[in-house]
């Protein structure tokens, strides 16, 4: 069980690096969608088949793996934007940062006082690494859609951490988080379209005149 879980978490961590290294938006969206789907399977692996765990898993796979990527692709098409990612932090430095972050996450997780049943899993380092990756994407990318992707990866990291507590967290909270996320991406999809129409660009650097 733990071995399979670790493989999946490892896969998610690998997808982090893929997301950091992809130079085109569709590739980035695909990486994020795949990571969401991988994460969605995990609750089932971790716990006995329980109706609420299954529900969470199905909703996560559907939401993160299908609905959100579809929304993003539609926004991308509707706004008719360039597909190249225009980074603040170049791809190689981002990858190095991501790799360094992953190593740091593993080291930090060793130092944390975890419960014995979680000590063997990669859940905590995976979660921390995803959060860091999300931040690197948020800081280092300029297009609005790539920032949404960074935000999604950040949220995935939080979700991974939340898996440690899946029995303690009420279903309603899980569902609420997922709903928030979906609606958030939906709204951003609309805003992206509006920004594109109003300013003829999606480059967030050009929005700085709105600061005050």
């Amino acid at each position, binding site marked *: 069980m733990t071995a399979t879980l670790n493989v999946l978490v490892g896969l998610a961590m690998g997808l982090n690096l893929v997301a950091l290294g992809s130079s085109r938006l569709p590739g980035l969206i695909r990486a994020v969608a795949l990571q969401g789907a991988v994460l969605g399977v995990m609750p089932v692996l971790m716990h006995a088949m329980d109706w609420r765990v299954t529900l969470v898993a199905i909703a996560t796979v559907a939401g993160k793996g299908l609905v959100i990527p579809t929304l993003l692709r539609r926004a991308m098409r509707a706004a008719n934007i360039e597909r190249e990612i225009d980074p*603040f932090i170049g791809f190689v430095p981002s990858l190095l940062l991501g790799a360094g972050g992953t190593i740091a996450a593993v080291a930090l997780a060793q130092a944390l006082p975890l419960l014995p049943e979680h000590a063997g899993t990669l859940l905590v380092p995976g979660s921390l690494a995803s959060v860091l990756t999300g*931040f690197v994407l*948020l*800081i*280092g*990318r*300029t297009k609005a859609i790539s*920032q949404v992707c960074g935000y999604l990866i950040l949220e995935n990291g939080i979700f991974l951490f939340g898996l440690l507590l899946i029995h303690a967290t009420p279903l309603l909270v899980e569902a609420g988080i997922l709903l928030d996320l979906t609606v958030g991406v939906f709204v951003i999809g609309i805003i992206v379209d509006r920004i594109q129409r109003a300013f003829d660009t999606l480059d*967030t*650097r050009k*929005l*700085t*005149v*709105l*600061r*005050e």
Partner: protein
Amino acid sequence: MNTALSIAVSAVFLVASLICATWARRAWCVTVVGGLFAQLLGAVLVLTSAGTWVFAGTGSFCGQRLVFEVDALSAFFLVLVAVVGGVGAVYGSGYWSESAHPRTARLGRLWWSVLLLSLDLVLLARDGVHFLLGWEVFTLAAFFLVTLDRQRSEVRRAGWLYLAASHVATLCLFAFFVLLSERTGSWKLGPMLGHDELAPLFWLALIGFGLKAGVFPLHIWLPSAHANAPSHVSAVLSGVTIKLGIYGLVRFTGWLPVPASAGWVVVALGVISAVLGVAFALGQHDLKRLLAYHSVENIGIILIGVGFGLVALGHGGAAWGGVALAGGLLHVWNHGLFKALLFLGAGSVLHATGTREMSRLGGLWRAMPWTASLFALGAAAISGLPPLNGFVSEWLVFLGLFDAAGSRGPMAWGAMPAAILLGVTGALALACFVKVCGVVFLGAPRSPAAEHAHECGPAMRGAMLVLASACAGIGLGPALVWPAVARAADAWRPGELVVARPESLTALGAAHVVLALLAGAAVWALARKASRAGMVRAVTWDCGYVAPTARMQYSAGSFAGILTEWFGWILRPAVHREVDAGVLPRAGRHASHTPETVLDQVVEPAGRLVMRLSGAVRRLQHGRVQSYILYLVAGIVALVAVVAAGTPP
């Protein structure tokens, strides 16, 4: 009629005046004057009976129990508020009338009532919270009164400067009261001389109250605010509100222990304010700005008196300290009276000619004899000439200084130069007012505006007459006001300072009466001679010019030229001259201007430095979302590091 009743009546009337301020002009005037008359009566009762009136309410206000007290010191300042506040209200009804200022006249009345009520609250409060509340409200009311004419940009600028400076003062007072309540455990105010650990708080009070009073390096807000406010507001600002700074200083040096050096610091500030205040006044060409600088000078004279009272505490409460303090306190009244009179006179000039620029005035005594003679009386009083009130209080301060100088000890070395510099101040003030009266009222009109001047209305004239007769009254009967002054000085630190009546006081009064009679007889004889012999008007010696013009008269700048040169090191006058030195010179130009040295050379550079530093910090706020997230991550990492460092392994 007892004190409690008159104060209650006064409160009711003043609150009623708040209500009728916006719609009933006459009712407002009646309620304000009636309320202030009741207040005057109550205060005089306290001053004559040597008792105190205490009101300890059961209700609470802002979390503190309502406690009001009127002792001799509070009553002393209540008298000033009542007289100047009432006279200013009457003057204002003619000066800032509904017809001349339809947009702001009612606002002016409303804020006037608020100002009076909050001033009374400050004087009556025996609780830190209520004191601060009154203080802040009266600052705001004064701000709105200063900026009544806010269409003009210089009025707005003066208002903002006043507001900023006042809030620095309020900030110091907040710190003062919070530290005080923290150390004593309650917000209650009263004598707490036993707590020696409270002494350092004096410095905070000195900055806070000193800023309000306009002590020299802290006076930056005063000239522009007093010059640009409507004249009746200038009168109450200069006559009353800056005295509240003195009240605070006297009150809290009386209640709290002070550091050993406090007295000398106050004396030094007083001497600096007196000499430099009058020096700056000499350099001014704007009538009201000149008067404003004389406020700085007179605050200096008051502080010299108060400072020697503080110094005397360290010498067993010697009698010279009591006399100097009494002189300082009497000067509070006197300055309030004659400075209000002078500002009201300047207001009449402004009302009649539309300008405060002295180089555009001249020859006004023909058109406005009342204003001219009342202004001249005020000018004689502020210059400390007998037989008027300014001489009485300065004479008391001098008497204290001479006694201190005569007694053996270190204070003789401080009192001697202080007395000399006080004398220099009086002489310079006299020169300055000779300049003002000569340039504004004598000679020939320098502009069409001055030619077409007219005398002010009865309300304005009556208000000035009241103040002038009060000035003359204190001058002629100093023995009558001495008990009130002595009670106030005695209430400062009961039993610690000997406040003995100077023996020569009665003689001084008699000499003043004789002098006044002689002067009256001389004037009468001159008038008789003139009417018998008839008058012939002719030009004065015109230096051989064929066609002398009004522009050839001494101007304000040229009259004081020599004196301002002496003080060139601090005044730093800006002179622009274009003079053609050929055999047949063409038209030349000469203009001089005295800048606000402290504001321009100290405060503004400091402000610019702060702005540059904040500008550098502001670059962090650039609008890039990515960097904001980076700040966030850096903040979280720093927090984690702090927590990790703080957790024991």
